[in-house]
């Protein structure tokens, strides 16, 4: 038995190395996403943004991390100490483990599982428990409001997101991310965002709502419930929530790129001339380019729109987004059945 485990050791070590190779760039990505957010929103608002720490403020995220690490974690009296500590971990873990099934490039994937879509979807849904627990364990009324809003919001938007996914599954005929990307092969016109345009929009909007970002940031709702579910958190425990939020922002952007914009496929595929010219660009670069577009959109929306009210958000989710998906799924099914080209021929 022990010998058997020892034989498995190199494989374990290899997986561990892969995990580290995903997590470290991811955490760096989160750090620089916060920096990009401050810079982009700064320029949108006619400000400069952070520019003092390091060259043009490049070290600002690290200064922030150091500050957060050295801050005291304040535990409110009469809070549930144990759950209060566990909640941020509950939020962060699913946001990180979901990355296992994400394909970065043709062969760059930790676990190429067949039910990848379901797995990622399940993981992103579990994150709401962390928020619920945080809101309840803090024993604060503002946190409670944040948690309740967040629970209602995440659950209802999960449904429209799930329906949008069904459309993709029908179109691709697979739940494996690599297969979904390969199903979009051919040219830019083969990408799913054209036949699935309504589902693409629904998934995008729901993705923003799912990550509790503006204009759906009701769970935090600065001007109404101060900071919502994480109002009582400070220092590292707050940083974990922060990390989880940004990691899931990146995750949703990756999902959008994979499911609708052809993942690591080159946009010049199938165009004579341009295709060969850009052949040297690795798939990862195309992927990151598409992801950064969605991340920029996140920041852009945040700087532009006012916030929804709780009931209006529910109305949008249940009365607009879900009916849209329900109408479009049969349409996709018919398109697939009739082998309508160029996507399903």
């Amino acid at each position: 038995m022990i010998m058997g485990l020892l034989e498995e050791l190199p494989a374990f070590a290899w997986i561990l190395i892969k995990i580290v190779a995903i997590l470290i760039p991811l955490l760096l990505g989160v750090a620089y996403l916060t920096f990009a957010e401050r810079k982009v929103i700064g320029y949108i608002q006619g400000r400069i943004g952070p520019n003092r720490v390091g060259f043009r403020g490049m070290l600002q995220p690290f200064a922030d991390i150091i500050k957060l690490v050295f801050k005291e974690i304040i535990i409110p009296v009469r809070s549930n100490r144990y759950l209060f500590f566990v909640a941020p971990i509950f939020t962060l873990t699913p946001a990180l483990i979901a990355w296992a099934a994400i394909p970065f490039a043709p062969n760059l994937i930790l676990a190429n599982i067949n039910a990848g879509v379901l797995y990622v979807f399940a993981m992103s849904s579990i994150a709401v428990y962390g928020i619920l627990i945080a809101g309840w364990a803090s024993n604060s009324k503002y946190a409670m409001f944040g948690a309740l809003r967040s629970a209602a919001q995440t659950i209802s938007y999960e449904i429209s997101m799930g329906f949008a996914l069904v459309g993709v599954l029908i179109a691709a005929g697979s739940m494996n991310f690599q297969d979904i990307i390969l199903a979009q092969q051919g040219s830019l016109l083969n990408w799913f965002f054209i036949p699935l345009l309504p589902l693409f929009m629904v998934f995008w909007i729901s993705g923003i709502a799912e990550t509790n970002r503006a204009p759906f940031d009701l769970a935090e709702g600065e001007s109404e419930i101060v900071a919502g579910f994480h109002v009582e958190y400070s220092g590292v425990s707050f940083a974990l929530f922060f990390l989880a939020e940004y990691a899931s922002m990146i995750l949703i952007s990756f999902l959008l790129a994979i499911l609708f914009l052809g993942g690591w496929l080159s946009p010049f595929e199938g165009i004579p001339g341009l295709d060969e010219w850009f052949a040297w660009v690795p798939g990862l670069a195309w992927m990151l380019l598409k992801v950064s577009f969605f991340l920029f959109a996140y920041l852009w929306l945040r700087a532009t729109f006012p916030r929804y009210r709780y009931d209006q958000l529910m109305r949008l989710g249940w009365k607009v987004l879900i009916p849209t998906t329900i109408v479009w799924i049969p349409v996709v099914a018919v398109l697939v059945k009739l082998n309508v080209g160029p996507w399903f021929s």
Partner: protein
Amino acid sequence: MAEIRNYTLNFGPQHPAAHGVLRLVLELDGEVITRADPHIGLLHRGTEKLAETKPFNQNIGYMDRLDYVSMMCNEHAYVRAIEKLIGIEAPIRAQYIRTMFDEITRILNHLLWLGAAALDIGAMSVFLYCFREREDLFDCYEAVSGARMHATYYRPGGVYRDLPDNMPQYQASKWHNEKETEQRNANRKGSLLDFITDFTERFPARIDEYEKLLTNNRIWKQRNVDIGVVSADRAKQLGFSGPMLRASGVEWDLRKMQPYAMYDKMDFDIPVGLRGDCYDRYLVRIEEMRQSNRIIRQCVRWLREHPGPVIVDDPKVAPPKRVQMKDDMEAMIHHFKLFTEGYCVPAGEAYAAVEAPKGEFGAYLISDGANKPYRLKLRAPGFPHLAAFDEMTRGHMLADGVAILSSQDIVFGEIDR
């Protein structure tokens, strides 16, 4: 069986949407507000009592600090009350300057309101855009009085001094090189009036930009339309004034109804709302900014062509000229007396009100013939507005409460006094 009780939420005084130091005790049924109980007094500084211990002319500075986003309008009401008691009238040029600065103040206030209201509803960029424009107006304040906010520029009998012929300039620094500095100084080459003209030319386009972001934005409309509706009759009963009253459809503006300063010579319209909801209050204030811009332009045109004195030539009320004091003993004594003892004001009572950006701001002054007020009562427009908060929010959701509060344009300096 357990008794079901509503959730009581303590909102403020340290809350991002509390607009200073408001404390609200909200009774919530789910997210629906069933009762709102505003608690005031956390910024109470006893201005009215303080005024009784200072000579008349030394109280002007306190007025700035009442509604600290519409400084000069507060000064205007107080100064006018003193002028009424003494029976003097400011020179016509001073009246025009006051009119112009009242309107600059109105734009200042409405810009801050717009930014804060948008921020409360979640549109944070508008806040910073508004502050960009406020910067120029603060420069105008600075150019005439030396202070960017608490100016103490209006004095009984006129204004502190005439408009300056040149504007302060930016200087090049480590962060702004020569070329950039040159650009920043481009509109500061001429006099203050040139600077203001430049602003009034730019400003309408800027308002259009804000409107593009908000007016037809579906989320903004969903958050504001039919929220906190007050009917015209009810608004009158509640003692509303200013944009709050006009948004409910009552055409009442002291600038038209009881003209003071030079408003009877000005050509401007007063916007009136139809429904009395938060959206109408937003539209009314946006339009008021455009009208203020119009008034400022008219004042600038007149001020360019008509030089003259800006304060009464009465050494008992207004300080003598600096030059006179150098070699005139009489002037020196007047100056000393004015700035230590002040002056005695004939016994009597006077009420003077101005259309401050938030509504009717009034000063009721009683003098017993001494050099200090016997009693000063200030009528703050925000007070009745806040008092109606409970009625306006009942049955709305928590997020609407925030929208209503910001649509009232509450500033605690004047409510607590």
